[in-house]
């Protein structure tokens, strides 16, 4: 990201990071959304925010141990307390964090493999048949599938997008490869392109229900655009970026931080992106002036990343 932005928001980002350190749960580098229970999302985001704020990464590798301590035996993560079971979003976020913070390749490979092997219900031809012939109120192509939130459910936009971002990173680092991976990456991208809302952007994954187009959501659109950076020439991606650029007056820091991280990955594609990025960062800075009053730790970490100067952890081509 641009040093100019970094300087402008240095003090505010310092307060955000200070608040993150203050909210670290006792005894370990793990975080909760708002209480005292380990949660994978705020832990991953906080580790990334703190990592990009440091000049040396050596200490951060040790901070991965508590996150790894919550990993399940099959290489996946629960979203929260360990008994809560496999969660794809949590797993993709955690593996992405492991790779960025420099975990050794053996450690990461187990989880990358688990992510590749996690399939939604539409991977079964019986379920595809059900959607084709009996359950047709939601318009989508069940042959194009990605990742579910949790096992035994169907694909949704947000976990699919994060899985794509993580697996692309793993592929670039040589942690995974082969036909199965390429097939999952292709199907996942096709699923996102299929589920786009009319006029651009994504919501949870239901673009048209009972013949009525539903509205896109900012955070889902941002994460999907992060996953589809390599597909920028596709009209769906361009339209969705245009839609997202029109949302910079968003009134919530969580969505706005995701928006900034997404459009930052597209900063070189058009003259309108950089000014929008600057305006969005100013807006975000106004929304997070008092980090202590913010209920959700993930939002604090995302804001620190969005106002920061480091690598963009959700940029597929990074």
């Amino acid at each position, binding site marked *: 990201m641009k040093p100019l932005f970094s300087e402008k928001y240095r003090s505010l980002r310092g307060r955000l990071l200070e608040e993150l350190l203050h909210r670290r749960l006792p005894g370990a580098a793990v975080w*909760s*959304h*708002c*209480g*005292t*229970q380990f*949660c994978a*999302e705020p832990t991953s985001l906080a580790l990334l925010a703190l990592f990009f704020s440091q000049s040396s990464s050596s200490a951060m590798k040790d901070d991965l141990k508590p996150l790894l301590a919550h990993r399940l035996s099959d290489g996946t993560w629960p*979203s*929260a*307390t360990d*008994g*809560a*079971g496999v*969660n794809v*979003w949590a797993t993709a976020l955690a593996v992405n964090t492991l790779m960025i913070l420099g975990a050794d390749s053996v450690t990461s490979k187990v989880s990358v493999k688990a992510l590749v092997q996690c399939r939604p*219900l539409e991977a079964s031809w019986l379920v595809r048949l059900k959607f084709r012939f009996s359950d047709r*109120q939601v318009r989508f192509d069940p042959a194009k599938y990605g990742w*579910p*939130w*949790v096992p*035994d*459910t*169907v694909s*949704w936009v*947000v*976990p699919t997008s994060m899985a794509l971002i993580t697996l692309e990173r793993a592929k670039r680092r040589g942690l995974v490869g082969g036909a199965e991976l390429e097939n999952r990456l292709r199907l996942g991208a096709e699923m996102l392109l299929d589920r786009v809302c009319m006029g651009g952007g994504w*919501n*949870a994954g*239901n673009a048209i*229900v*009972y013949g*009525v187009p*539903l*509205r896109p*959501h*900012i*955070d*889902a659109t941002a994460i999907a655009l992060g996953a589809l950076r390599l597909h920028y020439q596709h009209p769906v991606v361009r339209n969705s970026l245009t839609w997202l650029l029109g949302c910079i007056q*968003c*009134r*919530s*820091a*969580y*969505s706005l931080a995701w928006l900034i991280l997404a459009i930052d990955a597209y900063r070189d594609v058009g003259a309108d992106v950089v000014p929008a990025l600057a305006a969005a960062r100013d807006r975000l800075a106004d929304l997070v002036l008092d980090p202590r009053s913010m*209920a*959700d730790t*993930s*939002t604090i970490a995302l804001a620190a990343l969005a106002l920061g100067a480091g690598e963009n952890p959700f940029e597929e081509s990074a």
Partner: protein
Amino acid sequence: MSNSMSRRIFGGALLAGTGALAVERMRSVGWVADRRKPRSRVAILHEGSYAGPLDRVLVDGLRLFDLELHGKSVLLKPNLVESIPGAEVNTNPRLVGAAATAFLALGAASVLVAEGPGHQRDTQLVLEETGFSAELKERRIGFVDLNRDEIVKRPLVTQFTGLDHLWLPRTVLAAGFVVSMPKVKTHHWAGVTLSMKNLFGVVPGIAYGWPKNVLHWRGIDRSILDINAAVPAHFVIADGIVGMEGNGPLNGTPRNLGRIVLADDPVAADFTCARLMGINPLRVSHLAQAGEFLGNGAPERIIQLGEQLPRTVEPFAVLPEFAYLTQA
């Protein structure tokens, strides 16, 4: 509440004679306790506008029930989905604010508003865009995002879904008095969305995702029954001032109903709301089943504290697939 009568629930027996082929036959694994009290109380209040004196209307309405609220922590659970300009999607923030003030005025130790929207992950954005943030700030009422609250494993007392437990938010389980505050709407999967369907929002997205797809695959009606048996609401304040008909819960048409429905039994509340909508509650799978063990649906077991149900109503419009809902 009586647990003295325990028996196996058979959907087939329940629906005998209704001729409602569209009503799903459901049964729970094992024995299901009959939780119905001898009589439930409902108050239908007239209120034509959100600009009206809602604080006074609710205080007066709640006094009809003579609730024991002293020292209790009250949790108000509105139906917050997302902001769609021109659509009556969400429980109105003024009504929720008025309810908070009313419960405090009647002796509650504390009042919280809590919700976990099903599709929109950014709860703060929903609060901002729907006017909830401003309303709650003005009245100094706290809010908890149930999608990101701490979660606790809770065994299910019924197993209509086949699940033996749910992860539920600690805040909900710790509340002393849970109030379901639905928007009166049609629903393109469940037929209607009222106080019982509204409790879908207590199931945390952090554990189940956005949407809570596990519950959809297990059956929405079945999930509604299991959730309501696990987390029974103590009271209902249903927003029927302006409801939604047609393609609810998101894209229907606003419908001026001019009513607020209060009840000390979610099943009685939902049967009453359905009747006000011109919908036969026994045609709604989860309501028909709930009336057999969770609460009272039969008119003779509901005491009307406010106005009586009107003799005739103009039925809410429904999607063609749900035309059976309005049949006797």
